[in-house]
């Protein structure tokens, strides 16, 4: 069975600093990988996705993620965070899209001025 681990439940960063959120997945083949963001009292919004090709994928709002097959990882990065990036970030994996996504527990990011 596939699984996703986000080892950091909470991350606190200063505005303007860089951010990296870690994600490790468990799946026998190459999966579909996603990062979603959830702002307070909102549904989830897609930040970026990886299916194949270039292991570095660009997303919205300056986010990017890097896929590593050898490390079974899909870490999310942003060079300079803004206070509006405060949210919960979910990494997700799918082997068969019709069966939905398997989510990690999420990382709550707090950006302070």
């Amino acid at each position: 069975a596939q699984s996703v681990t986000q080892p950091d439940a909470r991350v606190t960063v200063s505005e303007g600093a860089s951010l990296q959120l870690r994600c490790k997945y468990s799946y026998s083949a190459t999966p579909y990988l996603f990062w979603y963001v959830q702002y307070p009292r909102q549904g989830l919004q897609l930040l970026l996705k990886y299916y194949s090709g270039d292991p570095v994928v660009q997303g919205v709002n300056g986010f990017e993620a890097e896929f590593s097959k050898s490390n079974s990882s899909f870490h999310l990065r942003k060079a300079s965070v803004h206070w509006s990036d405060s949210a919960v970030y979910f990494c997700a994996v799918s082997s068969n899209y019709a069966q939905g996504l398997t989510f990690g527990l999420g990382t709550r990011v707090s950006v302070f001025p």
Partner: protein
Amino acid sequence: GGIITQTPKFLIGQEGQKLTLKCQQNFNHDTMYWYRQDSGKGLRLIYYSITENDLQKGDLSEGYDASREKKSSFSLTVTSAQKNEMAVFLCASSITPGQNTEVFFGKGTRLTVV
């Protein structure tokens, strides 16, 4: 673009009560999902449906029923609400199958059982 509308936004129920959550999407997507979100536990799949009148159980289906009578709507029923239960239920949809598919989410229904 489209939208997923979940009703009600807030739902307060009593222990043992049967409660129904509704979801409508105007993306014309084939597949719809219900997820439960608990604090500290991420999102867990309750039911999904790949087409009208289809139902597939997820990891957390016990205690729930679902109904997909139309392509655009997907309902979830809590068969017997548990006391002190608090969770957010998220409805989602996607076109399947496809490499460029994306799962879209509604804003959720917050359930509190007293």
